């Protein structure tokens, strides 16, 4: 018989989170998480054991492989965002537990994490509130503020790089469910992101001639017929006080037209619960939102690994729950030792339906784990949670250069007030032969120019 003597009990972490929660001084309880990772190659030194294992956290009541459902969700109520808790308790959602991922390099693209270490301490805000290097140039890649101490620093990193790759093309299928849990609308779309600055893989940190841009991003629809060929191109300025330029190809018009871009709280297609503003929980320029405030810290259950449906040829995910058994993606979650919740207000959108959004960041990687929004009355409005993962499972893998591809895998967007759910998932390919691509310069030419929009139209 052996005894394991824990250095810190569960009450310790609660006390510590409460103690530092109102005066945020960076990630980590026992020591700064990023310092621990640099020093020990592991963030474990920053946290007590109970925050590194769900089994320890629950005193053995739950362990990896167990399923959280309405019968046991109370055991982990404190670890779930309020909407996710409600979905498990009342809507038949289930979450399968997995071990906490200890290798931080598996929680984001390898190059991104490596650059975050390499460039640590070199970022600052300039007079306009934009992230720059010490000598005032656009950011050079990776997390700008790994040891973020404020809400705006966390959001700055997220806004600078959404997918954490220099270039990404996601093949996406969307399912829009009505309140009866039936799929009413379905769409296939492609989503492209391309970084002209802060590049880590593509040649040159800055793409010559494009240094004043932060991002090229487009979305286009390939199905169904009513929206096929519809596409929008957003060109983001590096200056985060400016709205992106928005171009659209509407098949009816047979040409590309420029559109106003400040209305970002409407779905792009009928039946959807996704807004442009929702993208990566930071879909708008950084300073079109304001009053960033850290409001909570603590452990959390989140789907930061294992989201890839490797068993499926096209990467499609299985569903469960809800009235028809298809409201929720099958999701694996693990204990994240420290999450940081930040509130922000849409200061640049006086008539936005959202009053406040709250985003939970993984303190280790600053990945957004979930988001809820509140309407102007302060009532819960919408909820988002995604699943990430390495695209590697045994001998099956999708490579991104020298390392397995890391990306998001699926997302729930739930309208709390109407009961409508939008589910999206990343697939290997959508109709029209558009396949997932990563860190490929050709993504720009194929999906992010006026000519590209015209070609994608019909």
């Amino acid at each position, binding site marked *: 018989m052996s005894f394991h003597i824990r250095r810190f009990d569960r009450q310790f972490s609660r006390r510590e989170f409460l103690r530092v929660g109102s005066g945020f001084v960076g990630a980590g309880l026992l020591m700064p998480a990023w310092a621990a990772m640099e020093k020990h190659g592991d963030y474990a030194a920053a946290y007590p054991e109970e925050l590194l294992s769900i089994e320890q956290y629950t005193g053995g009541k739950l362990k990896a492989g167990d399923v959280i459902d309405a019968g046991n969700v109370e055991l982990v109520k404190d670890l779930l965002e309020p909407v996710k808790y409600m979905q498990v308790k009342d809507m038949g959602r289930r979450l399968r537990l997995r071990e906490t991922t200890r290798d931080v390099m598996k929680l984001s693209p390898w190059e991104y994490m490596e650059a975050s270490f390499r460039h640590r301490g070199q970022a600052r805000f300039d007079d306009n509130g934009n992230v720059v290097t010490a000598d005032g140039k656009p950011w050079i890649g990776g997390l700008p503020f790994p040891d973020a101490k404020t809400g705006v620093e966390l959001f700055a990193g997220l806004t600078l790089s959404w997918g954490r790759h220099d270039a990404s093309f996601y093949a996406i299928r969307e399912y829009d469910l009505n309140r009866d849990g039936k799929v009413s609308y379905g769409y296939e779309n492609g989503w492209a992101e391309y970084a002209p600055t802060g590049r880590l893989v593509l040649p040159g940190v800055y793409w010559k001639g494009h240094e004043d841009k932060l991002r090229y991003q487009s979305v286009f629809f390939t199905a*169904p017929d009513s929206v096929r060929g519809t596409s929008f191109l957003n060109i983001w300025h590096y200056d985060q006080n400016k709205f992106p330029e928005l171009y659209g190809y509407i098949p*009816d018009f*047979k*040409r590309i037209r420029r559109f106003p871009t400040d209305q970002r709280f409407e*779905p792009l297609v009928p039946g959807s619960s996704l807004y442009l503003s929702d993208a990566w929980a930071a879909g708008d320029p950084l300073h079109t939102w304001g009053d960033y405030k850290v409001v909570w810290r603590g452990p959390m259950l989140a789907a930061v690994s294992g989201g890839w449906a490797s068993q499926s040829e096209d990467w499609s995910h299985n569903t469960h729950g809800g009235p028809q058994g298809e409201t929720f993606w099958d999701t694996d979650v693990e204990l994240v030792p420290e999450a940081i919740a930040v509130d922000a207000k849409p200061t640049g959108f006086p008539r936005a339906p959202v009053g406040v959004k709250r985003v939970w960041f993984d303190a280790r990687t600053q990945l957004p784990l979930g988001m809820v929004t509140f309407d102007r009355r302060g009532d819960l409005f919408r909820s988002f949670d995604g699943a990430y993962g390495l695209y590697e499972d045994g001998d099956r893998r999708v490579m991104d250069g020298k390392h397995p591809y890391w990306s998001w895998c699926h997302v729930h967007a739930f309208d709390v007030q109407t009961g409508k759910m939008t589910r999206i998932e990343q697939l290997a390919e959508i109709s029209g032969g558009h396949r997932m691509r990563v860190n490929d310069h050709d993504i720009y030419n194929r999906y992010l120019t006026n000519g590209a929009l015209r070609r994608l139209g019909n």
Partner: protein
Amino acid sequence: MKNNNRLNWALATTAMALSSPSWSASGELLGVDYSLSGLIRVELAAKTVSDENPYNQRGNLFNGKEVERNGGLNVGTLLGLNLPIPISAPISDTATRNGVPADNDFNHSQVRLESTLQLKFSDNWSATAKLRGIFDAAEYDEFDPDSVNSNAAGYLYGEPNYFEYDDFENGGEQNPLEIAGDNYMVDFPSLYLDYQNGPLLVRAGNQQIAWGQALFFRVFDVANGLDLRRHSIFDFASEEYADERIASPAIRVSYQLNSNWELDMFAQSFQPTIYGNPNTPYNVIPSQFTVHDRYSSVDEEVNSGFRLKGFLGDFGLQFMYTNRYNPDGVVRWTKSGVNRDAPGLPGSGAILAETPLEVDPTGVWSAEEWFTYAGMARLDGTEGLNNIVTDFPASQLLLARPVQGIDAAKEELDLFFILTGGFLNNPLSGQGGGGLRGHIERTYHREDVFGTGISYVFSGEPGSWTDQLILNFEVSFTPDKTFTPIDLGQEYIVEDEYVTALVLEKYQRFSRSFPATYMVFQWMHRSESDLFGRHLSGMGGTVNNTPKGVDGGWNGLVLALQQPFPGLVWRADLSVLYDTRGGLFVQPALKWKPSGNWNIEMFYNHMDGYVDGANENENIMQTVDWADEFGLRVAYQF
């Protein structure tokens, strides 16, 4: 006769199609990625007013109306002398046009099938084929030539033909990628191959090409003509010319020069605008005319152009040049070639064949009708008559002479109508027949169109009216543009024309619970012609006066609103077009997408050509203000 059988067939076909929702397909075959999708749609437009299309035989304003014809043989005119007092031998009768008035319930009743196949052969090569099939259930009071004893020459001047249009004699199609019959058409609005390599995109094949920011107002949008055979321009306004813009074989090359500038070039086989055929619901050419389309003389011609578009600082700029045959074409008198004697005038047919005239009851019956329709068509009835006389000397064998003034013209015209209406067979009856058709030829002319445009996005206080307000200004200049002569003479009007459009666009959120309202305001100014391309010197003609013309160019204002409802399942639209000379078009519309497969659109078209005491025949809406209707489109997509 209303064709209920055809409607039933169409509805049955539709119902069968709807029971097979598994047509959607995508995947890979022989290494080629493919996706196939499409829709089937029933389209109806129900009339909400009793007015009929006056340009059709059964809507002719003079059907069943007794008209006095006061002809006279003017001695001075006959001898070519300017006599101090008019001396003429009066000949009068009355005539009642024998057309059978229509009482239509519908303006539009079609079923549409569209299917798009996209193929991707490799990263660089792909292809698109879009098939469009239309069946017109012809739920209309159709024109029956036998009912009026018509034997008018020309393929399109008997029973209505809804889709064939190529040739005066033979019907058929002008587009090599189209098959048409009298109530169906099948074509490929898209059939092209794409090659993309880096910043280069080459698209070769049948395609539409559209430029410019202005919607509906075509300043830069000059590459293609319009196909107005289906719902003319009265379908769902927010689709602009999606269904009308004519695709034709082309090579288009786009090159992204850098992040700011793009060069776009095309060379395209010339395809003219297709107007609604005679006696079809939205026909706008008076059906007393017979049109000889001369497209065959230019059907191997090529239009070409380029556009350079980019940014200079905060300003968007575009420059355009197009060398094209104007797809609208122009018309003038031409010999009828129809040797048909007028009743009681043996041998007159051979003479008439050398003039633009043809004896047939579907023609014009009286001077009153002549001048009424001349005004409606923006033509000069007096000079039109004179040009028949002077440009076609054979007409003088029938004692026709050039006249001075509208009264003399009426006298001579009525004499013609009386004599060719069977007067000599029964000179004492006092009741005459008619009429005379006018033959015109449609010709096409090359022109250069130069254009430039500027755009700017205003930034104001968040949520204010000036924040994210997009301004666009576009201008085109066409030197020596050819217009239809308002006298239909052999000399065309050739003048320089400027066309400008100012466009303001804005999203404005009025409430937190509703998505933003999308608003577009546009102002178009045309220096020489109206929106339909008719020269402004032809404006203002009536039964009592020849056109006075209008000064100041043509001005049109557009206000378009789109208000999505939460979730975008419903959307309310409002489109307003105001011709500043008193013409108004209003289309409120509702778009409903109840599920992924279904789309339902409802709209009401209201046209008023006489807003605020507008003068007759001076605005564009007077041409179509009979067409108030309720439109419904129900689509199932697969």
